[in-house]
Protein backbone atom coordinates (compact mmCIF):
# COMPACT_ATOMS: atom_id res chain seq x y z
CA UNK A 1 0.00 0.00 0.00
CA UNK A 2 1.40 3.40 -1.00
CA UNK A 3 0.38 6.34 1.17
CA UNK A 4 0.06 9.57 -0.77
CA UNK A 5 -0.16 13.03 0.80
CA UNK A 6 -2.00 15.42 -1.49
CA UNK A 7 -2.11 19.19 -1.00
CA UNK A 8 -5.63 20.43 -0.24
CA UNK A 9 -7.11 22.73 -2.86
CA UNK A 10 -7.10 23.15 -6.62
CA UNK A 11 -3.53 21.90 -7.08
CA UNK A 12 -4.28 18.74 -5.10
CA UNK A 13 -7.35 18.01 -7.24
CA UNK A 14 -5.26 18.38 -10.40
CA UNK A 15 -2.62 16.09 -8.94
CA UNK A 16 -5.24 13.48 -8.02
CA UNK A 17 -6.51 13.53 -11.61
CA UNK A 18 -2.97 12.77 -12.77
CA UNK A 19 -2.72 9.84 -10.35
CA UNK A 20 -6.15 8.59 -11.48
CA UNK A 21 -5.06 8.72 -15.13
CA UNK A 22 -2.06 6.59 -14.16
CA UNK A 23 -4.46 3.92 -12.91
CA UNK A 24 -4.42 4.87 -9.24
CA UNK A 25 -7.99 6.10 -9.06
CA UNK A 26 -9.94 6.23 -5.83
CA UNK A 27 -13.47 7.50 -6.67
CA UNK A 28 -14.44 8.02 -3.03
CA UNK A 29 -12.05 10.96 -2.92
CA UNK A 30 -14.42 12.96 -5.13
CA UNK A 31 -17.37 12.50 -2.77
CA UNK A 32 -18.31 15.62 -0.92
CA UNK A 33 -17.79 14.61 2.69
CA UNK A 34 -15.52 15.25 5.65
CA UNK A 35 -13.45 12.09 5.33
CA UNK A 36 -9.70 12.61 5.51
CA UNK A 37 -8.38 9.30 4.23
CA UNK A 38 -9.41 7.58 0.99
CA UNK A 39 -8.28 4.12 0.11
CA UNK A 40 -8.42 1.89 -2.96
CA UNK A 41 -7.23 -1.44 -1.66
CA UNK A 42 -7.29 -3.08 -5.06
CA UNK A 43 -4.95 -0.45 -6.52
CA UNK A 44 -2.84 -0.44 -3.39
CA UNK A 45 -3.11 3.27 -2.79
CA UNK A 46 -4.27 5.46 0.09
CA UNK A 47 -4.68 9.21 -0.28
CA UNK A 48 -5.02 11.90 2.32
CA UNK A 49 -5.49 15.63 2.01
CA UNK A 50 -3.18 17.80 4.05
CA UNK A 51 -2.36 21.49 4.20
CA UNK A 52 0.06 22.16 1.27
CA UNK A 53 2.84 23.35 3.57
CA UNK A 54 2.50 20.15 5.64
CA UNK A 55 2.93 17.68 2.76
CA UNK A 56 6.71 17.61 3.11
CA UNK A 57 6.41 16.99 6.86
CA UNK A 58 4.11 13.98 6.33
CA UNK A 59 6.53 12.59 3.76
CA UNK A 60 9.75 13.33 5.65
CA UNK A 61 8.34 11.70 8.79
CA UNK A 62 7.15 8.66 6.84
CA UNK A 63 3.41 9.07 7.51
CA UNK A 64 3.15 9.32 3.72
CA UNK A 65 5.44 7.39 1.35
CA UNK A 66 5.10 9.99 -1.36
CA UNK A 67 3.44 13.36 -1.77
CA UNK A 68 3.16 16.38 -3.98
CA UNK A 69 4.14 19.86 -2.90
CA UNK A 70 5.42 23.10 -4.37
CA UNK A 71 9.13 23.75 -4.89
CA UNK A 72 8.66 26.78 -2.60
CA UNK A 73 7.96 24.46 0.35
CA UNK A 74 11.03 22.33 -0.47
CA UNK A 75 13.27 25.39 -0.68
CA UNK A 76 11.89 26.90 2.50
CA UNK A 77 11.87 23.86 4.80
CA UNK A 78 14.60 21.77 3.11
CA UNK A 79 13.07 18.44 4.11
CA UNK A 80 15.29 15.36 3.80
CA UNK A 81 13.29 13.70 1.00
CA UNK A 82 13.80 12.59 -2.59
CA UNK A 83 12.48 15.01 -5.20
CA UNK A 84 11.61 12.56 -7.96
CA UNK A 85 9.72 14.55 -10.54
CA UNK A 86 8.68 18.01 -11.67
CA UNK A 87 4.95 17.68 -12.41
CA UNK A 88 5.00 20.92 -14.36
CA UNK A 89 1.73 22.12 -12.83
CA UNK A 90 1.02 24.82 -10.26
CA UNK A 91 3.59 26.95 -12.03
CA UNK A 92 4.47 30.33 -10.56
CA UNK A 93 7.61 32.12 -9.41
CA UNK A 94 9.23 33.25 -6.20
CA UNK A 95 9.97 36.92 -6.58
CA UNK A 96 10.99 40.13 -4.87
CA UNK A 97 8.27 42.76 -5.23
CA UNK A 98 7.94 46.31 -4.04
CA UNK A 99 6.23 49.63 -4.67
CA UNK A 100 6.61 50.82 -8.25
CA UNK A 101 8.60 53.86 -7.14
CA UNK A 102 10.92 51.92 -4.80
CA UNK A 103 14.56 51.67 -5.78
CA UNK A 104 17.09 49.71 -3.73
CA UNK A 105 20.23 51.86 -3.75
CA UNK A 106 22.12 49.57 -1.29
CA UNK A 107 22.72 52.40 1.18
CA UNK A 108 20.77 50.96 4.09
CA UNK A 109 19.55 47.64 5.46
CA UNK A 110 16.76 46.35 3.26
CA UNK A 111 13.54 45.52 5.12
CA UNK A 112 12.06 42.35 3.64
CA UNK A 113 8.61 41.03 4.59
CA UNK A 114 7.98 37.39 3.77
CA UNK A 115 6.47 34.06 4.69
CA UNK A 116 9.55 32.40 3.20
CA UNK A 117 12.30 33.40 5.64
CA UNK A 118 14.81 30.77 4.54
CA UNK A 119 14.45 31.49 0.83
CA UNK A 120 14.74 35.25 1.39
CA UNK A 121 17.78 34.85 3.66
CA UNK A 122 19.60 32.61 1.20
CA UNK A 123 18.79 34.83 -1.77
CA UNK A 124 20.13 37.98 -0.16
CA UNK A 125 23.10 36.14 1.41
CA UNK A 126 24.05 35.14 -2.12
CA UNK A 127 24.05 38.84 -3.04
CA UNK A 128 25.87 39.84 0.18
CA UNK A 129 22.99 42.24 0.89
CA UNK A 130 22.27 43.20 4.48
CA UNK A 131 18.57 42.64 5.21
CA UNK A 132 16.10 42.81 8.07
CA UNK A 133 13.54 40.02 7.73
CA UNK A 134 9.98 40.59 8.87
CA UNK A 135 8.18 37.25 9.11
CA UNK A 136 4.51 37.52 8.17
CA UNK A 137 1.95 34.76 7.81
CA UNK A 138 -0.41 36.34 5.27
CA UNK A 139 -1.37 39.49 3.32
CA UNK A 140 2.32 40.02 2.60
CA UNK A 141 1.48 42.68 -0.02
CA UNK A 142 0.32 45.02 2.74
CA UNK A 143 3.82 45.35 4.19
CA UNK A 144 5.39 47.73 1.62
CA UNK A 145 2.13 49.66 1.22
CA UNK A 146 2.11 50.47 4.94
CA UNK A 147 5.92 50.97 4.93
CA UNK A 148 6.38 47.98 7.23
CA UNK A 149 8.97 46.78 4.71
CA UNK A 150 10.79 47.98 1.61
CA UNK A 151 10.08 44.85 -0.39
CA UNK A 152 8.40 41.48 -0.08
CA UNK A 153 9.55 38.00 -1.08
CA UNK A 154 6.53 36.01 -2.13
CA UNK A 155 4.96 33.71 -4.70
CA UNK A 156 3.70 35.50 -7.79
CA UNK A 157 1.28 33.67 -10.03
CA UNK A 158 -0.35 36.14 -12.40
CA UNK A 159 0.79 39.35 -10.75
CA UNK A 160 -2.80 40.67 -10.52
CA UNK A 161 -2.72 41.21 -6.72
CA UNK A 162 0.54 43.09 -7.06
CA UNK A 163 -0.80 45.27 -9.85
CA UNK A 164 -4.01 46.08 -7.99
CA UNK A 165 -1.93 47.26 -5.04
CA UNK A 166 0.45 49.37 -7.08
CA UNK A 167 3.30 46.89 -6.60
CA UNK A 168 5.55 45.23 -9.15
CA UNK A 169 8.04 42.40 -9.44
CA UNK A 170 11.57 43.74 -8.92
CA UNK A 171 13.58 40.51 -9.21
CA UNK A 172 12.74 36.90 -9.94
CA UNK A 173 14.29 34.45 -7.47
CA UNK A 174 13.29 31.02 -8.73
CA UNK A 175 10.52 29.40 -10.80
CA UNK A 176 8.14 27.22 -8.78
CA UNK A 177 6.09 24.17 -9.73
CA UNK A 178 4.65 21.06 -8.06
CA UNK A 179 7.11 18.24 -7.29
CA UNK A 180 6.65 14.56 -6.53
CA UNK A 181 8.57 13.79 -3.34
CA UNK A 182 9.29 10.51 -1.56
CA UNK A 183 10.34 9.48 1.91
CA UNK A 184 13.89 8.09 1.74
CA UNK A 185 13.19 5.02 3.87
CA UNK A 186 9.91 4.25 2.06
CA UNK A 187 11.76 4.45 -1.23
CA UNK A 188 14.08 1.66 -0.06
CA UNK A 189 11.27 -0.70 0.87
CA UNK A 190 8.70 0.22 -1.82
CA UNK A 191 11.13 1.01 -4.63
CA UNK A 192 9.23 -0.73 -7.42
CA UNK A 193 5.83 0.80 -6.62
CA UNK A 194 7.19 4.32 -6.12
CA UNK A 195 9.29 4.18 -9.29
CA UNK A 196 6.28 2.88 -11.23
CA UNK A 197 4.11 5.78 -10.08
CA UNK A 198 6.89 8.25 -10.84
CA UNK A 199 7.39 6.78 -14.32
CA UNK A 200 3.66 6.86 -15.15
CA UNK A 201 3.34 10.43 -13.91
CA UNK A 202 6.38 11.42 -15.99
CA UNK A 203 4.71 9.99 -19.07
CA UNK A 204 1.73 12.23 -18.39
CA UNK A 205 3.91 15.27 -17.83
CA UNK A 206 5.54 14.59 -21.20
CA UNK A 207 2.15 14.24 -22.91
CA UNK A 208 0.95 17.53 -21.37
CA UNK A 209 4.13 19.27 -22.55
Amino acid at each position, binding site marked *: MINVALPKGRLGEKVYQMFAKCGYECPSILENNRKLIFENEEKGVRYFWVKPSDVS*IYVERGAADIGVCGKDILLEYEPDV*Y*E*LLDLNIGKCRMAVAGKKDFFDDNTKTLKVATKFVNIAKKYYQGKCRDIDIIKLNGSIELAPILSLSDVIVDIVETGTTLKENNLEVKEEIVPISARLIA*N*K*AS*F*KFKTEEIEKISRLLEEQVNIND
Partner: protein
Amino acid sequence: MIEKYLKGEERIVLALRSLYSKYGYLPYKMNKFEEYDLYAKNKDFLVSDGIITFTDIGGKLLALKPDVTLSIIKNASDEKGAKNKVYYSENVYRISGATREYKEIMQTGLECIGDLTLYDTYEVISLAGKSLGAISNDYVLEISHMGIISALLDKISSNEKFANEAIECIEKKSTHTIKAVCAEYGISKEDTEALCDFCALHGTPSHVISKLENMDVSQEFSACVEELKSIDALLRDDEGYDKIQIDFSLLNDMNYYNGIAINGFVNGVCECVLFGGRYDKLLDKMGKGCEGVGFAVYTDLLTSLDNSTSAYDVDTLVIYSKETDASVLKKTVEKLVSEGKSVSAQMVEPQKLRFKEKIEI
Protein backbone atom coordinates in the same frame (compact mmCIF):
# COMPACT_ATOMS: atom_id res chain seq x y z
CA MET B 1 14.80 -13.55 32.76
CA ILE B 2 16.64 -10.18 32.85
CA GLU B 3 15.87 -9.78 29.12
CA LYS B 4 12.21 -9.35 30.08
CA TYR B 5 13.03 -6.05 31.78
CA LEU B 6 15.04 -4.59 28.90
CA LYS B 7 13.52 -2.10 26.51
CA GLY B 8 13.75 -2.99 22.81
CA GLU B 9 16.59 -0.56 22.12
CA GLU B 10 18.52 -1.70 25.20
CA ARG B 11 18.32 -5.29 23.96
CA ILE B 12 19.66 -4.14 20.58
CA VAL B 13 22.56 -2.24 22.18
CA LEU B 14 23.53 -5.39 24.10
CA ALA B 15 23.37 -7.46 20.90
CA LEU B 16 25.53 -4.92 19.07
CA ARG B 17 28.13 -4.76 21.84
CA SER B 18 28.38 -8.53 21.83
CA LEU B 19 28.67 -8.56 18.02
CA TYR B 20 31.46 -5.97 17.93
CA SER B 21 33.37 -7.70 20.75
CA LYS B 22 33.30 -10.97 18.81
CA TYR B 23 35.18 -9.26 15.97
CA GLY B 24 37.84 -7.88 18.27
CA TYR B 25 36.55 -4.34 18.69
CA LEU B 26 37.35 -3.00 22.15
CA PRO B 27 34.96 -0.87 24.18
CA TYR B 28 35.75 2.83 24.12
CA LYS B 29 34.54 4.97 26.99
CA MET B 30 34.77 8.68 26.65
CA ASN B 31 34.18 11.74 28.74
CA LYS B 32 30.91 13.64 28.46
CA PHE B 33 32.98 16.78 27.82
CA GLU B 34 35.65 17.57 25.25
CA GLU B 35 37.58 20.74 24.51
CA TYR B 36 35.46 22.92 22.23
CA ASP B 37 38.45 23.49 19.98
CA LEU B 38 38.26 19.93 18.65
CA TYR B 39 34.77 20.49 17.29
CA ALA B 40 35.30 24.09 16.21
CA LYS B 41 38.14 22.97 13.90
CA ASN B 42 35.97 20.31 12.28
CA LYS B 43 32.56 21.96 12.45
CA ASP B 44 31.39 20.82 9.02
CA PHE B 45 32.02 17.19 9.93
CA LEU B 46 29.34 17.40 12.61
CA VAL B 47 25.79 16.46 11.63
CA SER B 48 24.32 19.39 13.53
CA ASP B 49 25.76 22.89 13.89
CA GLY B 50 24.79 23.59 17.50
CA ILE B 51 27.28 22.69 20.23
CA ILE B 52 26.53 23.11 23.93
CA THR B 53 29.52 24.87 25.43
CA PHE B 54 30.51 25.98 28.91
CA THR B 55 33.61 27.26 30.67
CA ASP B 56 35.29 25.04 33.25
CA ILE B 57 36.82 26.28 36.49
CA GLY B 58 40.18 26.86 34.80
CA GLY B 59 38.60 29.05 32.12
CA LYS B 60 38.85 26.41 29.39
CA LEU B 61 35.95 26.28 26.92
CA LEU B 62 34.43 22.82 26.94
CA ALA B 63 31.64 21.23 24.94
CA LEU B 64 29.13 18.50 25.66
CA LYS B 65 30.19 16.01 23.02
CA PRO B 66 28.15 16.32 19.80
CA ASP B 67 30.10 13.48 18.17
CA VAL B 68 32.15 10.44 19.13
CA THR B 69 34.30 9.84 16.02
CA LEU B 70 36.39 13.02 16.47
CA SER B 71 37.36 12.06 20.03
CA ILE B 72 38.29 8.53 18.97
CA ILE B 73 40.44 9.87 16.14
CA LYS B 74 42.13 12.33 18.49
CA ASN B 75 43.19 9.49 20.75
CA ALA B 76 43.94 6.94 18.02
CA SER B 77 47.52 5.92 17.34
CA ASP B 78 48.74 6.41 13.79
CA GLU B 79 51.90 4.37 14.12
CA LYS B 80 52.69 2.41 10.98
CA GLY B 81 50.95 -0.94 10.97
CA ALA B 82 48.79 -0.09 14.01
CA LYS B 83 45.07 -0.65 13.85
CA ASN B 84 42.64 0.80 16.39
CA LYS B 85 39.40 -1.17 16.49
CA VAL B 86 36.96 0.27 18.98
CA TYR B 87 33.21 0.34 19.61
CA TYR B 88 31.19 2.70 21.74
CA SER B 89 27.75 3.26 23.10
CA GLU B 90 27.46 6.91 24.00
CA ASN B 91 25.04 9.80 24.25
CA VAL B 92 25.75 12.80 22.05
CA TYR B 93 24.14 16.24 22.25
CA ARG B 94 22.87 17.87 19.10
CA ILE B 95 20.29 20.25 17.73
CA SER B 96 17.55 18.18 16.24
CA GLY B 97 14.47 18.58 14.05
CA ALA B 98 12.50 21.59 12.91
CA THR B 99 12.16 22.93 16.45
CA ARG B 100 15.96 23.18 16.63
CA GLU B 101 16.13 22.11 20.24
CA TYR B 102 19.02 20.28 21.89
CA LYS B 103 18.50 16.56 22.12
CA GLU B 104 20.36 13.75 23.79
CA ILE B 105 20.94 11.12 21.11
CA MET B 106 22.03 7.58 21.86
CA GLN B 107 24.61 6.17 19.43
CA THR B 108 26.27 2.79 19.26
CA GLY B 109 28.95 2.29 16.68
CA LEU B 110 32.46 1.31 15.79
CA GLU B 111 35.57 2.75 14.24
CA CYS B 112 38.51 1.05 12.58
CA ILE B 113 41.49 3.42 12.29
CA GLY B 114 45.01 2.64 11.09
CA ASP B 115 46.69 1.04 8.07
CA LEU B 116 43.52 -0.28 6.46
CA THR B 117 43.24 -3.08 3.95
CA LEU B 118 40.38 -4.25 1.76
CA TYR B 119 39.44 -6.72 4.49
CA ASP B 120 38.96 -3.92 7.04
CA THR B 121 36.53 -2.05 4.81
CA TYR B 122 34.68 -5.31 4.09
CA GLU B 123 34.56 -6.16 7.81
CA VAL B 124 33.04 -2.79 8.74
CA ILE B 125 30.41 -3.02 5.97
CA SER B 126 29.66 -6.60 6.94
CA LEU B 127 29.28 -5.59 10.60
CA ALA B 128 26.96 -2.76 9.52
CA GLY B 129 24.77 -5.38 7.82
CA LYS B 130 24.92 -7.65 10.86
CA SER B 131 24.02 -4.68 13.09
CA LEU B 132 20.92 -4.00 11.02
CA GLY B 133 20.12 -7.73 11.15
CA ALA B 134 20.25 -7.54 14.95
CA ILE B 135 17.59 -4.84 14.82
CA SER B 136 15.21 -6.38 12.28
CA ASN B 137 15.03 -8.92 9.47
CA ASP B 138 13.54 -6.31 7.21
CA TYR B 139 16.37 -3.90 6.46
CA VAL B 140 18.32 -2.37 3.60
CA LEU B 141 22.05 -1.67 3.72
CA GLU B 142 22.89 0.98 1.19
CA ILE B 143 26.40 1.39 -0.16
CA SER B 144 27.82 4.26 -2.15
CA HIS B 145 31.31 5.37 -3.19
CA MET B 146 32.37 9.00 -2.88
CA GLY B 147 35.32 8.42 -5.24
CA ILE B 148 33.04 7.27 -8.06
CA ILE B 149 30.85 10.36 -7.74
CA SER B 150 33.73 12.83 -7.57
CA ALA B 151 35.59 11.16 -10.47
CA LEU B 152 32.49 11.45 -12.66
CA LEU B 153 31.90 15.10 -11.73
CA ASP B 154 35.61 15.95 -12.21
CA LYS B 155 35.47 14.54 -15.71
CA ILE B 156 32.37 16.56 -16.61
CA SER B 157 33.46 19.95 -15.26
CA SER B 158 36.06 21.56 -13.05
CA ASN B 159 33.56 24.18 -11.90
CA GLU B 160 33.09 23.70 -8.14
CA LYS B 161 29.72 25.48 -8.15
CA PHE B 162 28.44 23.08 -10.79
CA ALA B 163 29.72 20.10 -8.78
CA ASN B 164 27.92 21.31 -5.65
CA GLU B 165 24.63 21.80 -7.47
CA ALA B 166 24.94 18.45 -9.24
CA ILE B 167 25.66 16.72 -5.92
CA GLU B 168 22.50 18.24 -4.45
CA CYS B 169 20.49 16.85 -7.37
CA ILE B 170 22.04 13.36 -7.08
CA GLU B 171 21.29 13.38 -3.36
CA LYS B 172 17.63 14.14 -4.06
CA LYS B 173 17.37 11.80 -7.08
CA SER B 174 16.26 14.86 -9.04
CA THR B 175 17.01 13.93 -12.62
CA HIS B 176 14.79 16.78 -13.84
CA THR B 177 16.86 19.36 -11.93
CA ILE B 178 20.16 17.88 -13.15
CA LYS B 179 19.10 18.60 -16.71
CA ALA B 180 18.42 22.24 -15.80
CA VAL B 181 21.72 22.57 -13.91
CA CYS B 182 23.69 21.03 -16.80
CA ALA B 183 22.00 23.41 -19.24
CA GLU B 184 22.87 26.37 -17.00
CA TYR B 185 26.56 25.41 -16.93
CA GLY B 186 26.77 24.52 -20.62
CA ILE B 187 27.44 20.81 -20.07
CA SER B 188 27.41 18.71 -23.24
CA LYS B 189 24.40 16.56 -24.17
CA GLU B 190 26.40 13.32 -23.70
CA ASP B 191 27.63 14.32 -20.25
CA THR B 192 24.15 15.49 -19.22
CA GLU B 193 22.73 12.13 -20.25
CA ALA B 194 25.51 10.27 -18.43
CA LEU B 195 24.84 12.26 -15.26
CA CYS B 196 21.07 11.71 -15.51
CA ASP B 197 21.60 7.95 -15.94
CA PHE B 198 23.97 7.94 -13.00
CA CYS B 199 21.45 9.82 -10.86
CA ALA B 200 18.80 7.18 -11.60
CA LEU B 201 21.24 4.30 -11.05
CA HIS B 202 20.57 2.16 -8.00
CA GLY B 203 19.81 -1.46 -7.20
CA THR B 204 21.58 -4.71 -6.45
CA PRO B 205 25.41 -4.60 -6.44
CA SER B 206 25.68 -6.81 -9.53
CA HIS B 207 23.22 -4.63 -11.51
CA VAL B 208 24.92 -1.36 -10.57
CA ILE B 209 28.50 -2.61 -10.94
CA SER B 210 27.80 -3.98 -14.42
CA LYS B 211 26.43 -0.54 -15.44
CA LEU B 212 29.46 1.22 -13.93
CA GLU B 213 31.84 -1.08 -15.78
CA ASN B 214 30.34 0.09 -19.03
CA MET B 215 31.05 3.73 -18.24
CA ASP B 216 34.28 5.09 -19.66
CA VAL B 217 35.10 7.99 -17.32
CA SER B 218 38.66 8.01 -15.99
CA GLN B 219 41.33 5.82 -14.41
CA GLU B 220 40.34 7.07 -10.98
CA PHE B 221 36.70 6.14 -11.67
CA SER B 222 37.68 2.64 -12.80
CA ALA B 223 39.89 2.14 -9.72
CA CYS B 224 36.95 3.01 -7.45
CA VAL B 225 34.67 0.62 -9.37
CA GLU B 226 37.31 -2.08 -8.92
CA GLU B 227 37.33 -1.45 -5.17
CA LEU B 228 33.55 -1.68 -5.07
CA LYS B 229 33.77 -4.94 -7.02
CA SER B 230 36.32 -6.45 -4.64
CA ILE B 231 34.20 -5.57 -1.62
CA ASP B 232 31.12 -6.97 -3.34
CA ALA B 233 32.98 -10.25 -3.99
CA LEU B 234 33.68 -10.58 -0.26
CA LEU B 235 30.14 -9.64 0.74
CA ARG B 236 28.52 -12.20 -1.57
CA ASP B 237 28.77 -15.07 0.91
CA ASP B 238 27.40 -13.01 3.79
CA GLU B 239 23.97 -13.67 5.19
CA GLY B 240 21.85 -10.68 4.25
CA TYR B 241 23.64 -10.05 0.94
CA ASP B 242 20.19 -9.80 -0.68
CA LYS B 243 19.53 -6.75 1.49
CA ILE B 244 22.46 -4.79 0.09
CA GLN B 245 21.79 -2.05 -2.45
CA ILE B 246 24.10 0.37 -4.17
CA ASP B 247 22.68 3.87 -4.35
CA PHE B 248 24.68 7.00 -5.19
CA SER B 249 22.09 9.32 -3.70
CA LEU B 250 23.89 8.44 -0.48
CA LEU B 251 26.43 11.22 -0.22
CA ASN B 252 28.63 12.08 2.72
CA ASP B 253 30.47 15.38 2.99
CA MET B 254 33.28 15.11 0.44
CA ASN B 255 35.56 17.37 2.49
CA TYR B 256 35.85 14.63 5.12
CA TYR B 257 34.72 11.38 3.55
CA ASN B 258 36.18 9.48 0.65
CA GLY B 259 35.65 5.97 -0.65
CA ILE B 260 32.85 3.80 0.62
CA ALA B 261 29.79 5.32 2.33
CA ILE B 262 27.09 3.31 4.07
CA ASN B 263 23.54 3.94 5.26
CA GLY B 264 21.12 1.56 6.91
CA PHE B 265 17.33 1.57 6.86
CA VAL B 266 14.96 -0.59 8.87
CA ASN B 267 11.35 -1.04 7.79
CA GLY B 268 9.18 0.85 10.24
CA VAL B 269 11.64 3.67 10.94
CA CYS B 270 11.21 6.67 8.67
CA GLU B 271 14.85 7.78 8.68
CA CYS B 272 18.29 6.32 8.20
CA VAL B 273 19.26 4.41 11.37
CA LEU B 274 22.87 3.62 10.47
CA PHE B 275 25.33 6.09 9.01
CA GLY B 276 29.01 5.75 8.20
CA GLY B 277 31.81 5.44 5.72
CA ARG B 278 35.46 5.95 5.03
CA TYR B 279 36.92 9.23 6.34
CA ASP B 280 40.61 9.37 5.40
CA LYS B 281 40.27 13.07 4.56
CA LEU B 282 39.13 13.86 8.10
CA LEU B 283 42.11 11.97 9.53
CA ASP B 284 44.39 13.91 7.22
CA LYS B 285 42.86 17.21 8.37
CA MET B 286 43.46 16.16 11.97
CA GLY B 287 47.10 15.42 11.22
CA LYS B 288 46.83 11.65 11.47
CA GLY B 289 48.78 9.75 8.88
CA CYS B 290 46.38 6.82 8.63
CA GLU B 291 42.98 5.77 7.31
CA GLY B 292 39.63 5.25 8.98
CA VAL B 293 36.23 3.67 8.44
CA GLY B 294 33.30 3.25 10.80
CA PHE B 295 29.61 3.71 11.40
CA ALA B 296 27.10 4.62 14.08
CA VAL B 297 23.66 3.19 14.79
CA TYR B 298 21.19 5.79 16.03
CA THR B 299 19.64 3.61 18.69
CA ASP B 300 17.26 6.33 19.88
CA LEU B 301 15.41 6.05 16.56
CA LEU B 302 14.64 2.41 17.26
CA THR B 303 12.08 3.16 19.96
CA SER B 304 9.42 3.42 17.24
CA LEU B 305 9.99 -0.28 16.44
CA ASP B 306 9.03 -1.37 19.94
CA ASN B 307 5.25 -1.64 19.88
CA SER B 308 5.02 -4.00 22.81
CA THR B 309 2.92 -2.38 25.51
CA SER B 310 2.36 -4.18 28.74
CA ALA B 311 -1.19 -4.29 30.09
CA TYR B 312 0.13 -4.12 33.66
CA ASP B 313 2.81 -2.19 35.51
CA VAL B 314 3.19 -4.92 38.16
CA ASP B 315 1.84 -8.42 38.60
CA THR B 316 0.79 -8.02 42.22
CA LEU B 317 -0.15 -5.08 44.37
CA VAL B 318 0.26 -5.85 48.06
CA ILE B 319 -1.71 -3.50 50.29
CA TYR B 320 -0.67 -3.33 53.94
CA SER B 321 -1.36 -1.04 56.86
CA LYS B 322 0.71 0.63 59.57
CA GLU B 323 -0.20 -2.25 61.85
CA THR B 324 1.12 -4.91 59.47
CA ASP B 325 4.10 -6.79 60.83
CA ALA B 326 7.07 -5.88 58.59
CA SER B 327 8.41 -9.46 58.69
CA VAL B 328 5.04 -10.79 57.45
CA LEU B 329 5.06 -8.21 54.68
CA LYS B 330 8.66 -9.16 53.82
CA LYS B 331 7.75 -12.87 53.60
CA THR B 332 4.72 -12.14 51.41
CA VAL B 333 6.73 -9.98 49.01
CA GLU B 334 9.68 -12.42 48.85
CA LYS B 335 7.33 -15.36 48.17
CA LEU B 336 5.66 -13.54 45.27
CA VAL B 337 9.03 -12.44 43.84
CA SER B 338 10.34 -16.03 44.08
CA GLU B 339 7.30 -17.08 42.02
CA GLY B 340 8.56 -14.78 39.29
CA LYS B 341 6.05 -12.01 39.90
CA SER B 342 6.74 -8.30 40.10
CA VAL B 343 5.38 -6.79 43.31
CA SER B 344 4.58 -3.33 44.58
CA ALA B 345 3.97 -3.03 48.34
CA GLN B 346 1.82 0.02 49.08
CA MET B 347 -0.33 1.29 51.90
CA VAL B 348 -2.95 2.75 49.56
CA GLU B 349 -3.75 1.77 46.00
CA PRO B 350 -1.82 4.17 43.71
CA GLN B 351 -4.15 5.84 41.26
CA LYS B 352 -2.19 5.18 38.09
CA LEU B 353 -0.70 1.77 38.89
CA ARG B 354 -2.01 -1.05 36.68
CA PHE B 355 -1.83 -4.48 38.36
CA LYS B 356 -2.97 -8.03 37.65
CA GLU B 357 -3.95 -8.97 41.19
CA LYS B 358 -4.31 -7.29 44.56
CA ILE B 359 -3.51 -8.86 47.92
CA GLU B 360 -4.43 -7.19 51.18
CA ILE B 361 -2.60 -8.19 54.33
